[in-house]
């Protein structure tokens, strides 16, 4: 789930306002956008690339490896199935508020076809200096620069802030992987951690988690056996239980998903869990010594 400059990218829903804004920025940064999809505007050109009626048509015309999905929530499932059937290897689902049962349908299809899904409700993926997909300010050089730290985040905004603090400590990023804020995700924190552990350009990993679910606990199990240092910040320690804190997945039910559980699991695995995102850069620099 690291994006590479060699990946050819389709944007499903390219003609939307947000999609247009971000497609232009992706192109300017170097992402190889080969086309977009909007069944109503097939045959036209948008953001200087052809618009197709479906991902299948796009694949027949020009091959692509990754598809970015920015369509309305109730259209996500069909768009994803289209991309999977077309043979896309990676799907990055940016849309928020996709019904969870639809997400389960598309994940089952992706699993059968060997496609990797990132999201839904992810802000995207960045490989600084190379390319990015999604809603990320990759082009902001005060936040993203090529480097050696892999960052995994459930949140786009907080992940961005964490990257800023890494850079202030002199650490750029090898890859930013936004896994998304939904309760059921195609790529878990552990999946992303495994990939960064194997990535030759990554020397250390920053986990940016939050309350709700068990993806941090699951990642902690893997982190325990890693040689690369892992540093974490978990948001939501001061949030009241039983309330959904902005993300559909960010809710503490009973003891499940609590800050205390996540912090304890990560600390047991030898991960340095910080009290403020301002410290992630200095803590990572220290861990790399």
């Amino acid at each position, binding site marked *: 789930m690291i994006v590479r400059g060699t990946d050819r990218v389709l944007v499903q829903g390219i003609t939307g306002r*947000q999609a247009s804004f*971000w497609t232009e920025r992706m192109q300017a940064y170097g992402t190889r956008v080969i086309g977009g999809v909007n069944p109503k505007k097939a045959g036209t050109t948008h953001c200087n690339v052809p618009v197709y009626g479906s991902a299948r048509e796009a694949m027949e015309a020009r091959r692509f490896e990754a598809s970015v999905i920015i369509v309305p*929530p109730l259209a996500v499932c069909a768009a994803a199935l289209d991309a999977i059937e077309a043979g896309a290897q990676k799907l990055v689902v940016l849309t928020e*508020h*996709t*019904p*969870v*049962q639809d*997400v*389960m*349908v598309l*994940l*089952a*299809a992706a699993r059968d076809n060997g496609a990797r899904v990132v999201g839904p409700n992810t*802000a995207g993926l960045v490989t600084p200096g190379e390319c990015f997909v999604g809603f*990320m*300010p990759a082009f*902001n050089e*005060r*936040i993203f620069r090529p480097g050696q730290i892999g960052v995994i*985040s*459930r*949140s*786009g*905004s*907080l*992940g*961005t*802030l964490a990257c*800023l603090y890494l850079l202030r400590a002199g650490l750029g990023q090898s890859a930013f992987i936004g896994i998304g*804020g939904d*309760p*059921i*995700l*195609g790529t878990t924190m552990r999946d992303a951690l495994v990939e960064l552990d194997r990535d030759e350009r990554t020397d250390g990993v920053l986990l*940016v988690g*939050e*309350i709700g*679910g*068990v*993806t941090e606990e699951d990642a902690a199990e893997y982190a325990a056996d890693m040689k690369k240092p892992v540093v974490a910040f978990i*948001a*939501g*320690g*001061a*949030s*009241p239980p039983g*309330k*959904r*804190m*902005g*993300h*559909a*997945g*960010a809710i503490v039910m*009973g003891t499940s998903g609590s800050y205390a559980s996540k912090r304890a699991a990560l600390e047991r695995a030898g991960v340095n869990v910080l*009290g*403020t*995102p*301002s410290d992630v850069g200095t803590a990572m620099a220290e861990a790399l010594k």
Partner: protein
Amino acid sequence: MNFEEHAGKALLAAAGIAIPEGRLATSADAAARAAAELGAVVIKAQVPIGKRGKAGGVRTADSPTAARARAAQILGMEIGGHRVERVLVEQRFDIARELYAAVLNDPACKSPLVLFSTLGGMDIEEVAAKQPDAVRRTPVDIRAGFDEDAARALIRGLALGDAEPRSATLLAQLYHAYRANDAELLEINPLSLTDDGELVALDCKFVMDDSGAQRRPELAAQGVSDAATELERRGRNLGLRFIELDGEVGVLANGAGLTMTTLDVIARHGGRAANFLEIGGDAYVKGKPALELVLANPRVKSLLINFCGAIARTDVMMEGVVAAWEALRPEVPAFFTVHGTGEDEAIQMLRERLGIEPYDALDNAVQAAVEAAR
């Protein structure tokens, strides 16, 4: 989104699952009339949380007079922060056995999970912890669905006797209801096996996936809003995710993760946030109504604005904040920290129009806001 028991039971009944005959009552007299029709009854507080029995919200009555008295006790009670506005008056059953059945969204399997147990009436997590063998569970390929054959395979060997085929039918019906209503959880506990060998759903917990509500507006309208206060209702009507808290530092930030972090850092520096409010995602154009909402809380003594723009453009958010500020001219001191997409334009706007210099570091802005709220 949570639902009261009676609303969940209506979904079960629509799927063919037997439920006790019952009436909703909003007064003690209405409860008495229902008991006159139904005979021996149980009277249940309708609030969208568990443990109602322990709180005294579930009582039996054998006569209309007793039903009136019990209902009068339960109506108006406060259970888990919810005031009881109505009771469900239901026909009472002689129970031979209490079973358990549920279907839920499982993040670990990334699929629906069907659960069944012969030990109903108790908290299923406790049963699973003490007697793991007593709880059967299976993930479902959501594209294939879950039929009676699959249900039979799940419950085989549980010594259900004559109730086994009926249990299999019920599980398939329950799964159907789960799928048809965008449930996040649909649970029957207890599922009663009566002396006559019938299966009756004595209780029902239905939680709807919030993201599924957009395609089922009529059902969603029956759900219980989690907006508990006047300001929270106002926020919901504006399409903003606003949660009122009991502190003094008003918060406006973008993105769920960043906003939770803002509350955390306020707590770390000894302060207390007055609210959670995030204008990330598509809400980043709502800076003006969002700030007005934060400032409508009379407890707010200082304001912390923390933007880190990814999708949410800080220049667009700042435009809204400045507009609200110029309209309201609030007296509370405000502290800003701004990074990410559009930051140069946003900071310039802040300096030129409000004459405020943002803090560079989050912790410094938070410290200043906490100090000012003391």
